[in-house]
C-alpha cells in the first residue's frame, strides 16, 4: 500500500488503561503488532483479551492510553482518518456475528457496498469468491446464518471480515467450539490466507493447537498488562506461574508433541 512508514508496527498500543467501575482490566498495557505477522493473544479468563480487541477496534473507549493502527490514532484521529481504517481492518467475532436477516452472500456483500462503484453482479461474484476462499460450499451463500453449523458461521464471519481485503484481521477465538478436525482446517486456512494476502492477524485464542500451528509470536496477558511477547521458545523459559502452567501443562505438551499437526493437514 504505502511505503511511507515501513518499520512502523501495524498496531501500537501504549499505556492502555481500561476499567469497569472499580475493576481494573488493563493498567498501562503496551503492545506492538508487526506487519504481516500472526500474533496470538492468550491469557486466563477475565484478563481482558476481548476487551483489548474491542479497544483497538474502537468499540470500547479506554480510560487512558494511546492506540495507533498504521500510524493513525484510533482514539483521537480525525473522522476521515478513522474512516479509512474501517476499510483496512476486518473483525471476526466469536460466533460470526452475522446479520441474521441476510443470507451469507448478502452478509459478505455488506462491506462491499461502501465501494460505491461495484455493480451488483460484480459484488456478487466477489462475494462468491470470498465464500469459496474460506472453504464454504457454493450453496452456503444462499443460506441464512441460522441454517449453518457453528463452524460454517465462523467461516462466513471470516469471509465477511475479508470482504474488502483488509490489511489486518482481528479474530476472536476463531477455533472455540469447533471439532478438532474443523479447528485444524481453520488454523490452516488462517495461515494460508495470511501468507497469500499478506495479512496481519490479531488472534485471541485459548486453543494451544492454534498457537503452535499458526502464530508467529505470542503475547501473554496477565497482571493487567502484556506480561511478555515472543516466540513459543521464549514462552518455555518464562517463570511466571501462570505462563509456566499454561505452556507446561498436559495439554501444552500434547500440542507440542504434534508440532505440525495443523501444518500437515493441508488443503481443506
Amino acid at each position: 500500500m504505502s511505503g511511507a512508514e515501513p518499520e512502523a508496527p501495524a498496531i501500537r498500543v501504549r499505556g492502555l488503561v481500561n476499567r469497569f467501575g472499580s475493576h481494573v482490566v488493563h493498567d498501562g498495557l503496551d503492545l506492538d503488532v508487526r506487519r504481516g505477522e500472526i500474533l496470538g493473544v492468550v491469557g486466563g479468563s477475565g484478563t481482558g483479551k476481548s476487551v483489548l480487541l474491542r479497544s483497538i477496534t474502537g468499540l470500547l473507549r479506554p480510560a487512558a492510553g494511546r492506540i495507533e493502527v498504521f500510524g493513525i490514532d484510533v482514539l483521537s484521529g480525525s473522522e476521515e482518518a478513522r474512516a479509512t481504517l474501517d476499510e483496512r481492518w476486518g473483525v471476526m467475532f466469536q460466533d460470526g456475528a452475522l446479520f441474521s436477516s441476510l443470507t451469507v452472500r448478502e452478509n459478505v456483500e455488506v462491506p462491499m457496498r461502501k465501494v460505491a462503484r461495484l455493480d451488483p453482479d460484480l459484488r456478487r461474484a466477489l462475494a462468491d469468491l470470498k465464500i469459496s476462499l474460506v472453504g464454504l460450499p457454493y450453496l452456503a451463500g444462499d443460506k441464512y446464518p441460522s441454517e449453518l453449523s457453528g463452524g460454517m458461521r465462523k467461516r462466513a464471519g471470516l469471509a465477511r471480515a475479508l470482504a474488502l481485503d483488509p490489511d489486518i484481521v482481528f479474530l476472536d477465538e476463531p477455533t472455540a467450539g469447533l471439532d478438532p478436525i474443523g479447528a485444524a482446517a481453520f488454523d490452516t486456512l488462517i495461515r494460508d490466507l495470511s501468507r497469500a494476502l499478506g495479512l496481519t492477524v490479531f488472534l485471541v485464542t485459548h486453543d494451544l493447537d492454534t498457537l503452535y500451528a499458526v502464530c508467529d509470536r505470542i503475547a501473554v496477558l496477565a497482571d493487567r498488562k502484556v506480561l511478555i511477547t515472543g516466540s513459543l521458545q521464549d514462552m518455555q523459559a518464562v517463570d511466571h506461574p501462570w505462563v509456566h502452567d499454561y505452556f507446561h501443562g498436559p495439554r501444552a505438551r500434547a500440542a507440542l508433541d504434534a508440532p505440525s499437526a495443523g501444518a500437515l493437514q493441508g488443503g481443506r
Partner: protein
Amino acid sequence: MLDQDLRFDPAAPAEGASSLRIAGAATVATVDRLHAWLDGLGTGADRSIDIGEVARLDTAGAWALVTFERRLTEAGRHLDIRNAAAEARLVLDTVRGAMPAPDAPAPSPRGLIPLLDATGRRVAASTGKAAALTGVLGLFLARLARVLRHPREFRAIALVAHCDDVGLRAVPIVALMAFLIGVVLAFQGSAQLRQFGAEVFVVDLIAISVLRELGILLTAIIVAGRTASAFTAAIGAMKMREEIDAMRTLGLDPAVVLFVPRILALLLMLPILGLIANVMGLVGGALMAWIELGISPSMFRTRLIEGTDISHVIVGLVKAPVFALIIGVVGCHAGMQVSGNAESLGRMTSSAVVTAIFSVIVADALFSIFFAQVGL
C-alpha cells in the same frame, strides 16, 4: 480512501493487441474498471499481460485476471501473466484454487400451479395453527389439572410475579382508557339525545355500553397488546437461547413452568381489570354527564340503579376469562414458534398481538350472538 490509481495499456480495448500491461493498484476499489477493460477484450488470440508495475494486487484484482484467463481458456486460447511478484503469484494461485464453481440453481416453477400451491399451503397452515392453538389450550388445562392434584409442582412465586406484571402494572393504562371512553360516550350521547329531550337516557347509554361491551372488550385489547407480546418475547427469547431445551433435559415441563403461571395470572387478573374498567368508565361518564347535562352524581346513581339490570355486568364480566385464555394461549403458542434468529422473534411477537386481538373480537361477536339468542 483506498488507492484508486490503475492504468491500462492499451488504454482502450483493442482487438488486435496481444500484449497488455496494467500498472497501479488492482484492488477492490478499481476492480470495476479492470473487469470492464478485460471484458472488452476479445478472445480471438492468445494474450499476455504484464503486471510487473502493479503495486498492489488483492483478491478482487486477482479475481478479474483469473476470470479473464478462464474466458480465454474456454475459447481455446491462453493468457500469460508476466512479471508477477512472488506475493502476486501467491494471491493469483490462492484465487485460482478458490474460484467458485456455481451449482445450477434449482428451477423455479412458474404459472398458475405455484400460486395454487402457495395458497393451499397457507390455508393448510392456518388450519394447522388453529389446531396448534387448541393443542396449547388442552396442554394448559391438562397441566393445570395435574398441578391441582400435585400442588407441590405449582409455582406460586411465578404466579404472583406474573399477576403483578399482567394485572397491577396494567391498572393505570386500563383505568385511564376506560375513564376516557366514559367521557367520550357521555359527550357524544348527550349531543344526540338532547335533540329529543331525552338527556337523562345518557346514563343508560353509558351504563349498558360500558358494562356490557366496551369495558371488558377494550381492556382485553389493551391486555392483548401488552401481555401477549410480552409472553411471546419472553418465551421466544428463552427458546432462542435453548433455555427451554435445558428445562426439558432437567425434567421440568415448560408447560408447567411457563404456561400455567402466565395463563393463570391472566385468568385471575383480566376480570379484575375489567371490573376496574367498568367502574372507571362509569365515573368518566358521570363526570361528563354532570358537566355537560347537569346530571348530578346522585341522580346518575339513582338512574343507574333503576335503569340498568345487574345482568349487564354479568354478561360483560363472564367474557373476561375466555378472553384471558385466548390471549394467554396465543402468546405462549407464538413464543414456542420462535426459531433461531432475531427476526423470527419480532415476527412472532407482532403475529401474537394481531392474532390475540383478532381472536378476542371474534369471540366477542360470538358472545353477542349467544346472549341475543338466550335473551340476556
